[in-house]
């Protein structure tokens, strides 16, 4: 076989290698602490990626207002990268953050699929990764550098099942899940298990895809089975429409849901159709807790809209990281200084990141806006879930369910 293409192959290889080699200067960075954040700023999940970014930005803005944006004398900088909603791009974004920007912590991502692509990279590099809202249990199983600020699917699904069984005394529930969302599928599964274990019956199980506009066929099929309630563990982007359509078709059963419902858009889209429905969340907006109310007001002032659950979780993720860094600066100043970008690539830095990891893992009873956060031995947040009811077009606190 003739190898006429060899010159072309070698040439292109050489070109590529040269081009990249030219750019691989090891950066002796500035004296600052860099934190990385990655999410979908473009793509169909952009609304959640942007929420995450906003939550982190608010935390940084508050740090700037409070202490000039410095921790332990070193300025803090946040670099945000876009992963376009694709797992392979999440891996790229994180690689860039780790190697080009020399970050000491990575915050991200919302979707478990993208967190799962990026987590092994952070684990291998010895840099802590804090996911604000990935709920697939497997994310933190990747390694001991991976943390999450939210409850995992098994917990939240069980919460709503318990609520349905005990507080609402329901026996027959239908499920309408978002097949494209890992979060929704997981939640539905755990709800089903818990509900059945408590003696309940799942009378129908239907699915839709995120982005769908029309749910009439699924709801018609559900209506035929006469459920007492419908569990819709999806995102607010579809839930409002589902509620409307259900009422149009004459389905009066209340809807139940998870924290994916949380957003100011939920009631805007769903309107009256959502009255009488319940969902679990991290915080209740009518909770007079000054910290929560302060967060809600500041967010609205800075971005012009109310935060959704994801923004709140990202805000907490950033603040937990800042708090751990403060602690480290106070207790172990030389180690803390090794976190600076000037020490990029040194073993001191790796040790410093390891220490940071330990501090994050030791988070106990941190009062965040999304609840009282304690990280358990699997590095998942255990905190009580709040169940909200929608009454008269408003979200009203109903009850708290502890883990």
């Amino acid at each position, binding site marked *: 076989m003739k190898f006429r293409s060899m010159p072309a192959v070698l040439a292109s290889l050489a070109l590529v290698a040269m081009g990249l080699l030219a750019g691989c200067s090891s950066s002796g960075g500035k004296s600052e602490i860099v934190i990385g954040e990655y999410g979908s700023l473009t793509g169909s999940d952009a609304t959640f990626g942007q929420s995450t970014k906003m939550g982190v930005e608010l935390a940084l803005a508050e740090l700037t207002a409070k202490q000039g944006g410095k921790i332990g004398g070193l300025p803090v900088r946040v670099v945000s990268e876009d992963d376009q909603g694709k797992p392979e791009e999440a891996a790229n974004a994180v690689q860039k953050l780790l190697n080009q920007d020399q970050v000491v912590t990575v915050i991200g991502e919302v979707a478990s699929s993208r967190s799962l692509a990026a987590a092994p990279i952070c684990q291998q590099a010895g840099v802590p990764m804090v996911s604000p809202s990935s709920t697939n249990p497997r994310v933190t199983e990747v390694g001991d550098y991976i943390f999450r600020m939210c409850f995992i699917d098994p917990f939240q699904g069980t919460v709503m099942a318990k609520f349905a069984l005990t507080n609402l005394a329901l026996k027959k529930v239908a499920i309408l899940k978002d097949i494209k969302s890992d979060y929704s599928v997981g939640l539905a599964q755990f709800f089903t298990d818990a509900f059945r274990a408590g003696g309940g019956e799942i009378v129908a199980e239907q699915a839709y895809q995120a982005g769908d506009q029309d749910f*009439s066929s699924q709801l018609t*099929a559900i209506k035929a089975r006469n459920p007492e309630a419908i569990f819709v563990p999806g995102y607010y982007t579809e839930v409002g429409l589902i509620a409307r359509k259900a009422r149009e078709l004459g389905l009066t059963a209340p809807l139940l849901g998870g924290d994916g419902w949380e957003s100011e858009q939920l009631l805007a889209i769903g309107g009256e159709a959502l009255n009488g429905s319940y969902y679990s969340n991290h915080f209740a907006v009518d909770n007079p807790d000054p910290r929560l109310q302060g967060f809600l007001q500041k967010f609205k002032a800075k971005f012009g809209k109310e935060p959704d659950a994801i923004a709140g979780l990202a805000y907490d993720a950033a603040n937990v990281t800042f708090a751990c860094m403060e602690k480290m600066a106070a207790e172990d100043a030389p180690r803390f200084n090794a976190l600076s970008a000037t020490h990029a690539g040194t073993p001191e830095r790796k040790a410093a990141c390891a220490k940071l990891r330990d501090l994050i893992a030791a988070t106990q009873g941190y009062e965040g806006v999304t609840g009282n956060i304690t990280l358990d031995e699997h590095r998942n947040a255990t905190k009580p879930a709040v169940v909200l009811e929608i009454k008269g077009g408003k979200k009203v606190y109903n009850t708290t369910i502890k883990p």
Partner: protein
Amino acid sequence: MSEFLQQLVNGVTWGSVYALIALGYTMVYGILRLINFAHGDIYMLGAFIGLYVSRFIRAGENPSPVKALVVLLASMLLSALVGMVIERFAYKPVRKSPRLSALITAIGVSLLLENGGVLLFGADPRFFPQLIPSRNIPLGLGVVLSNQQLIVLVVSLALMFLLRLFVTYTRTGKAMQAVSHNHTAAALMGISVDRIITLTFMIGSSLAAAAGVLVALQSPKIEPYMGIMPGLKAFVAAVLGGIGNIPGAVVGGLVMGVAEVLVTGYLSPTYRDAIAFVLLIVILLVRPAGIFGKAVAEKV
């Protein structure tokens, strides 16, 4: 039984939306042999333009059918202009190029509209004001039709009927038919091919925009990526009915809507998108010209 009938009603309503979008596809393809990938995004644009128009005339405060009509017509008009701009700047230069190039251009325009939409409107889904409050009309046998669904159906059919009249009985309409048969011959007959093409785009875009507004009145959530799937499915519907054939697009759209709703309700909702393509493959294997199409022998 009532479940089945309800599904049918749902399917026909949804299908009429596909039909509206499919009309634009079929007309543009008939004239230019181009699959206008960006057509689905005009549907999206129509919904957003409708949103801003309704804000401008404060329709949300005192909703009324008249205001809804104003929003609809304004959106149709403005989208027609957008269609004209797209045709002039993106498609006209590639009219003589190989078809794959034109296809790529169309894809580029589609991406531009979607991502431009994200930049302009933000990635958050937006809420379209409920200009026509929803009321249920029982049809008997346990089947309900909402007044919104009825409006979608009626307006779609009215627009399709008007289009048919236009194409069949007016001079310009006949000119459009002529251009779709053969550009050169039409030009020799004194028809300004450029103008007809532009007009076709404008009409197609306005119909897609109408579909967008009608859907938004019914399902008030709109976001920049909402046009992709309906666009593709509408194209399949156009092929189903015979591409280039106007009544065919209508029938294709209705078949598509019913098939999709039945599959979603009785088989599995997760195969909803796939059914469109399965239908496509089946029809292309069995009867490539579509339901109403005529098999045209390719001249060498």
